[in-house]
């Protein structure tokens, strides 16, 4: 009797085993370790389009010869056991439909793609299409000091005017045309700055907004000085630099020094016609380090006191910061990633004058900053590039754009008639 019961138990266990075996179906070896057909398809499409050949053929749907050659190339680069179907679809203009299935053209080497297949899609563009890039316009006025009555220093090989023109051209896409103002002489600069004694406000030159402007000094280590300021501060020109600092704070300007020691000289070919800068250039007066010290006191609204203490240091070769390198590609500006900096500002000025480094153009070296935008804690900024001559205005562009980060708007890629969707479907020939 017990034996019969055991036999019944065995029958039940056999049934359980068979049932489990029926449901626990193991995959075929091909499914366990498949070739990644999707990736193979994608890399095949990328290879075929490396010289834009796939794009050309996809748009030339009536050219049988071209499609035959494409099929030869496709057959040659896929393993013999891989079957394929390549179809180029038109991008659809209908709502809710990405592509137009009826307008495509296909090539294939098999009637069917077997039990399992995988696909990759790739969008190609017509060679007749130009994709445009529209930069975001910066809501600020760009003043470029192009003063005909002042000279430059450490802009060797260039003139003030040629640098001004280059800068205007570089920034033209990023500003409204009416927002780029060439300050043609020191009289206009004086109008912007306002009365020399520091009372009152400056006036716009063309109804532009003076507040929040960017002022690029193209004179290198020299700064143009209006006649009224030159007369008032003839005993100590560093006081003019102090007034500049105060104006930068007052108007929330970003003052840009493109090369060397900022504000090391003042220049006015009329007011200083009998004075030379120590190197034989008339119309220019050496202020030395007192100019920058006074400017920094001005931007921090500290009381003026004469200080000719040397600030900068020679740190040799410096490298672009990671942010700057990243923005090189984004904005398409490619200065040399290494530069020589002989006038790098000490990091200590940030605490002494309540500044923060908003944008680093160069990495810090020996506790000195060769290029950065320094923001004051209230308003006003100084962008100083302490590189040695000759100036590279691409660094100016990179620094300003990195600081303001205008967006580049690129035209859509999936516009009907300009793009095609190419789908490559791959399968494995043979059984399991």
């Amino acid at each position: 009797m017990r034996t019969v019961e055991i036999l019944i138990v065995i029958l039940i266990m056999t049934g359980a085993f068979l049932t489990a075996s029926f449901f626990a179906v193991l995959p075929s070896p091909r499914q366990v370790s498949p070739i990644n057909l999707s990736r193979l398809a994608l890399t095949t499409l990328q290879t075929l389009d490396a010289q834009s050949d796939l794009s050309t053929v996809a748009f030339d749907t009536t050219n049988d010869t071209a499609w035959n050659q494409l099929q030869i190339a496709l057959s040659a680069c896929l393993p013999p056991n891989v079957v394929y179907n390549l179809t180029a679809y038109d991008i659809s203009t209908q709502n809710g439909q990405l592509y137009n299935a009826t307008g495509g053209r296909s090539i294939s080497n098999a009637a069917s793609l077997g039990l399992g297949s995988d696909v990759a899609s790739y969008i190609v563009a017509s060679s007749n299409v130009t994709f445009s890039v529209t930069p975001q316009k910066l809501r600020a006025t760009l003043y470029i000091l192009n003063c005909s009555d002042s000279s430059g220093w450490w802009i060797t090989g260039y003139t003030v005017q040629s640098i001004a023109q280059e800068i205007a051209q570089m920034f033209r896409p990023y500003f409204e045309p009416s927002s780029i103002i060439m300050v043609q002489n020191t009289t206009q600069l004086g109008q912007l700055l306002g009365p020399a004694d520091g009372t009152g406000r400056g006036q716009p030159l063309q109804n532009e907004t003076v507040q929040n402007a960017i002022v690029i000094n193209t004179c290198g280590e020299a700064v143009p000085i209006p006649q009224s300021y030159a007369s008032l501060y003839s005993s100590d020109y560093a006081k003019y630099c102090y007034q500049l600092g105060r104006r930068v704070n007052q108007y929330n300007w970003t003052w840009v020094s493109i090369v060397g020691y900022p504000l090391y000289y003042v220049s006015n070919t009329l007011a200083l016609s009998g004075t030379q800068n120590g190197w034989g250039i008339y119309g220019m007066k050496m202020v030395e380090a007192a100019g920058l010290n006074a400017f920094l006191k001005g931007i921090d609204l500290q009381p003026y006191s004469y200080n000719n203490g040397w600030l900068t240091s020679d740190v040799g070769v410096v490298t672009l910061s990671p942010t700057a390198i990243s923005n090189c590609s984004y904005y398409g500006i490619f200065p040399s990633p290494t530069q020589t900096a002989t006038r790098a500002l000490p990091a200590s000025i940030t605490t002494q004058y309540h500044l923060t480094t908003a944008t680093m153009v160069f990495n810090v070296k020996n506790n000195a900053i060769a290029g950065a935008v320094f923001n004051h804690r209230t308003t006003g900024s100084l962008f100083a590039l302490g590189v040695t001559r000759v100036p590279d205005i691409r660094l100016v562009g990179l620094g300003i754009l990195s600081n303001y980060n205008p967006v580049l708007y690129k035209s859509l890629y999936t516009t009907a008639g300009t793009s095609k969707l190419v789908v490559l479907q791959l399968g494995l020939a043979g059984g399991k």
Partner: protein
Amino acid sequence: MTGATIDHLVASTVFLAALLLFIGFFNQMNQTAIVYQNHKHISTKCSDILDSILLNPGSPSDWGFSGSSTRKLTFFGLQDPDFQEYRLSPFSLTRLLSPGAQQYNNVSWDLNGGYLLLQASECIDYHNVTSLLGINGIYDFQLAIAPTLTVNISEVSDAHLNLRIQVYGTGFPLSNAYLNYLMFWANTSTSGSFPILNCNFTSDALQTDSSGIASIEFPYLSSGTAFTFIVKAYTTGISGTGYLAKETVTNSGNLIPYIQSYDVGKANVILAQNPQTGMGNLYFNASFYALPDNFVPIPAGNFAGNVNSGTPSQNLQITTNNQTGFLVVAYGDGNHYGMMITALGVDSIGVPVTFGANPSGKDWVATDLRQVLIGDIAYQAKLSLWSLQGYGVTG
């Protein structure tokens, strides 16, 4: 009473036997499933590692150009640092040192008269690569990177030099493909004992037939001429290259090019005599050409000298400016002449690279495949991966 006892004994025995049997059955089913799961995991890992190698340039990213950067490598990858997607650096690939290679990496040794031998100290070895990929002791792999198009060149018996070029892909022959070629040959009329190195470049519309075959005859060259022939095949969307150098062993031997180093745009190549019994003077003339994607070579250095038993090698300093190219060498002992070629960057003459351990005899090897570009030459990168940890379930 006795009958009931016997019934119990039989029933218990049969029950225990059946229980053990079914435990074995179910266990076997589970084991099979575990093995399958492990295989699936290896397959996924294979795809991941292949993408990891092909889609990042490594760090420092200039390690392909610089031996010093190679020694500081903290992450391994073969992508060309100037590009994105599946485009590989022709120089990083030459710095791979497989297990078993000793003083030089032996990427190519006398393959159709072509060499690519880089000193081992300039390379990264397989053990370091597995460590940098984080799979050391867990997986072994072999990475095979070979041109998608095979371009075979062979001599046809004739009074003049006559070459047959066959082009085929992994699946089919490449019919109607356009061919451009570079021809170098050594004149038997010599300047002293130095062979004169001549060259001829053409972009004639040579085209393969439906079998992927084309022929070209050089009526101005006899069939015994020492030559180096490089051909680039192109059709819609795909390019390949191949070469043939007629390497002759003269009475004074032949020349082997050893790349000692290349760093920051300069390469140091030793031309060493592969001596024969005679050990006489072997004279050579060599030229380095940079070869951009348009297949128009740019001459970038000429060298001449001789080797013998007293001076068995000569050192050549080549300025490459980090461009791919090749060094083509004509040599001779005054009576017999030969030629050989060495690549700087694998794509210039279509050198294949195989790196890693040997998968033969392994229990389960997962493979995956990608199409890649080196320069504008189409290659296929195939990774074979296997586990070193048995069949335990690891993921």
